[in-house]
């Protein structure tokens, strides 16, 4: 079976985000970019399926500027077999990405699609679900465990109350939670081998997808900076402040 993994180029989790002075977005100039951590988990899970003999091929797809090739290469170094870049300079929102992925699903006919539960830039957590709806496939989101069966997958999901185990018929869409696995490091020899793996490039137009943004961003602002705290002299003072200033106890 084929596994399709969606991978997004995002600002590295270590970077301190700076909002542009005109409030139109965040500053991406000279900022370290990397693979969305949840997508790294998705790749790891897919590669493990191939190593276990359950999957024959792992395809990684990224949607965005040509720079996304870097993240596709990383995914190839981590073990994916080939890459697909859907290249566009458009501001890509979840619905547009889901539509592009749907077109790739139609083309490749994978038995399983694995995506991160969210990307750490927009934190939308929408793409996987939208793709499931558009493609008419079952979905198992926030997965912390995957057991492949015959034509189905048993998935443990992280839900508010704890863990929920469900079965989905294949083909299906899985989105990964943190606990699903611990991704491996890219080895230097595999980085070199990744260079020889193919990457197909399409545009949204090639796929007949309209990616015009549907949501307009009015303003981007940094969260209010935390005010400095104070050191109280005594427990009495603390209780007094909690009661009369913060009004969190009565």
């Amino acid at each position: 079976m084929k596994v399709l993994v969606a991978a997004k180029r995002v600002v590295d989790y270590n970077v301190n985000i700076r909002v542009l002075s005109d409030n139109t977005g965040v500053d991406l100039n000279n900022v370290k970019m990397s693979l969305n951590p949840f997508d790294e988990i998705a790749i790891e899970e897919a590669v493990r399926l191939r190593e276990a003999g359950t999957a024959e091929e792992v395809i990684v797809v990224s949607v965005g500027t040509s720079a996304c090739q870097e993240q596709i290469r990383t995914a190839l170094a981590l073990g994916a077999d080939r890459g697909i870049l859907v290249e566009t300079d458009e501001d890509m929102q979840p619905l547009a990405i889901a539509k592009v992925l749907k077109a790739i699903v139609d083309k490749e006919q994978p038995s399983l699609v694995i995506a991160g539960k969210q990307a750490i830039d927009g934190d939308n957590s929408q793409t996987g679900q939208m793709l499931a709806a558009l493609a008419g496939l079952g979905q198992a989101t926030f997965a912390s465990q995957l057991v492949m069966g015959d034509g189905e997958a048993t998935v443990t999901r992280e839900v508010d109350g704890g863990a929920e185990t469900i079965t989905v018929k294949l083909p299906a869409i899985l989105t990964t939670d943190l606990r699903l696995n611990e991704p491996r490091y890219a080895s230097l020899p595999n980085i070199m081998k990744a260079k020889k793996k193919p990457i197909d490039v399409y545009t949204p137009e090639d796929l007949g997808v309209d990616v015009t943004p549907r949501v307009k961003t009015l303003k981007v602002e940094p969260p209010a900076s935390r005010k400095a705290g104070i050191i109280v002299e005594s427990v009495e003072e603390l209780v007094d402040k909690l009661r009369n200033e913060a009004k969190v106890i009565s």
Partner: protein
Amino acid sequence: MDFNLNEDQVAFRDAARDFSDNEFAPHAAAWDAGHIFPRAVIRQAGALGFCGLYCPEAVGGLGLSRLDSSIILEQLAMGCTSTTAFISIHNMATWMIADYGNDQTIVRFCPDLVSGKALASYCLTESGAGSDAGSLRTRAVLEGDHYVVNGSKMFISGAGATDVLVAMIRTGESGTRGISALVIPADSAGVGFSANLEKMGWHSQPTCEITFDNVKVPVINRLGEEGDGFRIAMKGLDGGRINIATCSIGTAQAAICRARDHLLSREQFGSTLSSFQALQFKLADMVTELVAARQMVRLAAFKVDQGDTDAAVYAAMAKRFATDVGFEVCNQALQIHGGYGYMQEYPLERYVRDTRVHQILEGTNEIMRLIVSRRLLSDADIESIQ
């Protein structure tokens, strides 16, 4: 001329950083305090390719350039200076076997060395022969198909924990031409190790004296011909000096990152330290010197890659400059931290202790000046040194 890293170099750098951030940095302080040699983590590093960086692919190495290797080692050094320095020495000794060994020696030693399953030490210095390494006295006498080695080696990095010794031994006349390089398994009968010597830094790797008491070494284990040993040792050091300089650069980068964060967060006299111009200028100087040092190291690496006839001179200049700058930057970063910099809760004092030895080993910085000045005062064209 393009000073940007290419696509591969970016990928190597990021992979090395990822490993260093997760497997070195969180443990470096504990390895330092406990004098722990992180054998398992080095093995893991080997599995990812970090133990045979510039060994040829034919022997199982990655066949990377010295420039690529420097870019990689710099990232590792940001997480743990001492462990990375050991890995760099292992890379150097392994390369010497790969480049100068005969087929049998390569087949016997290289697969395990390039994968980090086995580790190597470089053994040149003796108690009586440091800067004047050409005067070394450990001697090998030929007896049929093997040598019998007697003598001792001083200050050997990794000794006691490594499996293979690449040792420079006198097989002939006095002077540099009477020296041969022998590959000696560390578990050979007659090889003895002193207790781990107590030292100022580099605590995550042992440093020992090694004694050779009638140690039998097959002739087949010799690298190159008899008398080639000193030349081979110096060839190894051209790369080794670039590597050690790189360890200083990576550590200094880590120190600057810390210093900058501290300047922005620490408040005195009612404002952050970053508002004081004396400290702003200090930071500006630190980063300026570091960038200059990094470029010089990369230039030297490039010269070695090109096989430039003056590669050794560039390596010496880079080692002298980058290890001096590296130490000074770490020391200034400590100063910026005030009393906290002196405390072991922060890594600054470790950075200072670890980078100090880079000015001494693999040829002291005085010897580096000797190499550079000797070249400049020779008959050869001096303007070709650019």
